[in-house]
Structure formats: structure tokens, C-alpha cells
């Protein structure tokens, strides 16, 4: 047991994590492509046309996984940031920094696909629905995290300040979500109830799950590539980086 713990902590050093990440990236890319092709095939050719929504519903195969990933990435980011703050491990903080742009991308993708879906289905690009509003606020939280890190020159301070912000955000996310939800029911703005979606065909569910896996693998692959770039940038004055790039 003791042996295994020591093994894991070895990768907290940028020098040993850099090659490990390099070895893992092709596998995650491969998994992302395989799941993506399978998911797209099911979502375009296998899944039946929806009785009420026609072909337009197929955007949910991108929309739902993107929304899931945006929320999940925020949690993972906060986890790494908190770990970096508690244990003072450099790679954890770099990981949090590397995840933020992907999270923001997923939130944006979710909002854009949502409004593209909303226009033909609801007749409006934007509805002040609880989920849409919380997703928008989540995007703001990602942007705030990235802006704070970009504004601080000292990387160590940027890591720690970003970590505190991410943790404050995690405490706030449930509060924001429920307040937006109650605000929405109080105002009764939209008559569309997302919760009453018609029960989904089995194939649709499979397509969505495969796409979610593809997005997940893609996020890991991209985050690892980004963390490698961050490691090189921050450790550029060390001896091992000079050898690693030869």
C-alpha cells in the first residue's frame, strides 16, 4: 500500500508528469475518435426521427454532452485547484489552469447549440429558463477564473488566487442554481417545461452516452496537451526541459 502511494505522488512533479501525459494523450485521442464516430453514427443514422421535433432534435447529441461536461469540468477544475492549494503540488494547479478553457468551450457550445435548438422548437433564441441561465452563469465563472489567472504575472500567486476563486465558485454553484430555479418558477416566464421531455428511445440514449464519452475523452486529451504546454512554459529554465525538447 505504501509503495503505491509513493508511486502516485511521483507524478506530482512536472518532470515525471510531462512524459506520462505525453504517453496518455494518443490513447485518449483514439478513444475520443472511436466514441465520437460511433456516437455520431448512432445519432445521425440509427436514432429514429422524433415524432414531435422532427430531425432538429438531433442537436441534443452535442448539446447534452457539452452541458454535462461544462459542469463536470468545473468540479474537476475546482478539485485540482483545491488539491494544489492544500498540498502545494504544482501539477495540480497547472491541471486546473489547463481545464478552464475547455470548460468555457463546453459551456459556450452548450449555449450556442441550445439556442440553435430553441429557435425552431420554442420560437426564441433565448428563454430565461433556469438551466439556460445557470449555464450562462457557469460560463461567467469560467471566464472569471481565466481572467484572474491571466491578470496575475506571478504563476504561483495566479495558481493560488485562482484556486480560492474556484473553491468559492464551487460553494456558490448550488446556491446559484437553486436561486435561479426558484426565481424562474416565481416569474413563470417560460411556459416550456424541459423536465417533461418525452421518454427517450433507447438508441437516442445510447447515442447521447457515446457522445458524452467522446466529449469526455476529448476534454482529457486536450487538457493533457495544454498542461504539457503549461509545464514547458513554466519550467523553461530547468535542465530537463532543455533535454526534453531536443
Amino acid at each position, binding site marked *: 500500500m505504501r509503495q503505491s502511494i509513493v508511486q502516485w505522488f511521483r507524478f506530482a512533479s512536472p518532470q515525471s508528469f510531462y512524459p506520462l501525459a505525453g504517453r496518455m494523450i494518443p490513447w485518449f485521442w483514439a478513444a475520443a475518435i472511436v466514441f465520437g464516430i460511433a456516437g455520431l453514427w448512432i445519432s445521425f443514422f440509427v436514432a429514429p426521427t422524433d415524432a414531435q421535433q422532427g430531425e432538429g432534435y438531433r442537436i441534443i447529441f452535442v448539446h447534452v454532452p457539452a452541458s454535462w461536461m461544462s459542469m463536470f469540468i468545473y468540479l474537476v477544475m475546482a478539485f485540482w485547484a483545491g488539491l494544489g492549494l492544500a498540498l502545494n503540488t504544482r501539477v495540480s494547479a497547472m491541471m486546473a489552469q489547463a481545464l478552464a478553457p475547455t470548460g468555457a468551450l463546453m459551456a459556450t457550445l452548450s449555449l450556442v447549440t441550445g439556442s440553435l435548438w430553441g429557435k425552431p422548437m420554442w420560437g426564441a433564441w433565448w428563454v430565461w429558463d433556469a438551466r439556460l441561465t445557470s449555464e450562462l452563469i457557469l460560463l461567467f465563472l469560467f471566464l472569471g477564473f481565466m481572467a*484572474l489567472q491571466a*491578470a496575475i504575472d506571478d504563476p504561483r500567486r495566479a495558481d493560488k*488566487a485562482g484556486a*480560492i476563486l474556484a473553491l*468559492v465558485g464551487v460553494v*456558490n454553484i448550488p*446556491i446559484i442554481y437553486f436561486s435561479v430555479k426558484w426565481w424562474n418558477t416565481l416569474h413563470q416566464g417560460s411556459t416550456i417545461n424541459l423536465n417533461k421531455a418525452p421518454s427517450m428511445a433507447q438508441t437516442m440514449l445510447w447515442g447521447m452516452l457515446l457522445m458524452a464519452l467522446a466529449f469526455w475523452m476529448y476534454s482529457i486529451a486536450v487538457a493533457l496537451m495544454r498542461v504539457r504546454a503549461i509545464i514547458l512554459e513554466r519550467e523553461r529554465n530547468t535542465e530537463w526541459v532543455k533535454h526534453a525538447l531536443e
Partner: protein
Amino acid sequence: MNAFLATVRRDLLLALRRKSEVLTAVFFFVIVTSLFPLGIGPEAVLLKKIAPGILWVAALLATLLGLPRLFATDHVDGTLEQMVLSPSPLGLLVAGKILAHWLLCGLPLVLLAPLLGLQFDLDASALGILTLALLLGTPLLSLIGAIGAALTLGVRGGGVLLALLILPLYIPALIFGAGAVEAHIAGLDASGHLSLLAAMLALAVFFAPWATTAALRVALE
């Protein structure tokens, strides 16, 4: 506790010697709320409906205006470092500074709100709820804002960044604060909103000085 009171007294004293800074935020509040009728039109029914939202958004922005000053001057002249080194716990001193900030930036808004609400044709009981909601909400704004002020201390473009970081976190306060007044106007019970606001305030009183202290230590190291 002495250190806490001494910090409050010191910050109030400093602010009273430079009154214009405090008054600027208050006038900002007044001007912003007066701009909305000019932009929207003098329709009494519509204005009455949107009054709680306008007053609350203006209060958020006015609070935000005073936040960069919370730690900046003390940071520049080195007082903040002395506070970190002092034998009293930093969290207590920070809590004192936040309380002073609320007394200077939050309390005037609470006291002015009924007057501004009259411009929007709110009746007496709605004004009471508005004042009560602001009384519970503005300390919450100061507490959450202090975390942002500490995080952006001495950072390039700190003021704008502060708005980006803090405004999303202000959303629950805005929803329940304005919601309380709207619920009252609609003939519903506002106590649920006020209770939630009070619960968030209790949570923030406990956690915010602690997070602010952590952020200050990061900024000063």
C-alpha cells in the same frame, strides 16, 4: 475583540476624513436609479414593476464601486502587511474592515432606498420590505465582494476584473432581494425570500472573512 473594534473605528475615521470617496458611491446609486425612468419612460405601472430590480442592481454596482478601496490603500502604504504580522488573528481584522466597508457603502444605500423607492411609486409596506431586504443583502454584498477585492489586490486592471469575478456571485442576493419586494407587491409572503437572504448572510459571515484572509495571504506573499 478589541482589535476588531479598533479596525472598524480606524477605517471609519479614515473614511470620514475623505468624505468625497464615500459620497461618490452614494451619488452613483442615486444617479443610476434616476437614469432608468429616463431611459424607459415615465410610465408609473411599468416603473413600479421594475423598481425592486433597478434598486437592487444599482445597489450591487454601487457596492462594487467602493470595493477596490477596501484593501488597496492599506496595501500601498504597508498597513496590510502590519496587519498580517500583528498578533491578532487576521480574520478578525478583515472582518472589521468588511464591517466598516458596509457601514460606509452599504448602510447609506439601505437608508436611501426608501426615498428612491418613492420615485417609483412603491407603497409604504413595499418600501419597508425593500429596506429590510437591503439591510440583509448589502452586508452579504460587502462580504462576498471582500473576497474579490483581496483576490484582485494589486492586479493589473483590478477594478474591471473584480466586477467580472464578483457579479456572478451576487446573483443569488439579487434574486432573493428583489424577489422579496416583488413577491410582496404581488400579494405574496416575502418572509421566505428574506429568510433565504438571512441564511446566505449567516453562511457568508462565517466563510467570507476566512476566504478573504486566505486570498490576502496569497496576495502578500
